[in-house]
């Protein structure tokens, strides 16, 4: 699926993900954090990747294989080095107004990977095990 770079599309995609999770016995709490991570990934692609250029698209794939939800979000931007993203927990960064999106994705999902896609842009792949609910899923704090 390809979307134009508009923030309004985030809710539509969250709705689609929610529908995908229907039928699975996914606790509301877990569903909430998955949708938040999805929101952060999409916002990152639209704002930082595509710079809100509506001629550029966000390419999205969502699937459940076995017990694992996998979400791929790819933008058409120049890409970035995730290792260079500042740690939002560092005292000097704690009061910054941005830079928490990737941290939230990593907190709420089991696996978050970044790569420069062969056809251009940055791809973020988010994975979450929908099986046994562990402590992290039940209480992200």
């Amino acid at each position, binding site marked *: 699926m390809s979307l134009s770079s508009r*923030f309004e599309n985030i809710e539509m995609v969250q709705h689609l993900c929610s529908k995908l999770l229907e039928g699975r016995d996914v606790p509301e709490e877990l569903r909430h954090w998955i949708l938040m991570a999805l929101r952060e990934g999409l916002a990152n692609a639209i*704002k930082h990747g595509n710079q809100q250029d509506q001629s550029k698209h966000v390419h999205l794939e969502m699937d459940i294989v076995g017990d694992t939800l996998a979400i791929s979000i790819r933008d058409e931007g120049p890409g970035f080095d995730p290792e260079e993203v500042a740690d939002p927990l560092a005292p000097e960064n*704690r009061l*910054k107004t941005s830079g928490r999106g990737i*941290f939230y994705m990593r907190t709420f999902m089991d696996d978050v990977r970044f790569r420069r896609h062969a056809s251009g842009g940055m791809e973020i792949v988010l994975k979450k095990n929908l099986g046994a609910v562990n402590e992290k899923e039940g209480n992200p704090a």
Partner: protein
Amino acid sequence: MKTNVRDSGGVQVVELKGKITIGSGDVQLRETINKLVDSGKKNILVDMKDVTTIDSSGIGELVGCYTSVTNKGGKLKLLHLPPKINDVLTVTQLITVFDVYESESEALASFRG
């Protein structure tokens, strides 16, 4: 997002309702707080009871508002944090930055202390 501002004994109580997310509510929050600060209001209590969703952009705006008010010699405190927003602030260790209250009367009294 909808906002309502009322004065309670010199404290500006800012009631937020709806989403504080990127492109929807984040800028509105900043503008509401900036307007108060620009008009000399220094004591601000943000009531989050009816906030349904917040994302990193909304959190960023909240932090920006806190810094902006503090830099002007004022105080910005939070009231009625919904559990999931509390979690979002906790994982980024911002919960230690904000003064958070469950009771409006206690929150208002804290500005006088």
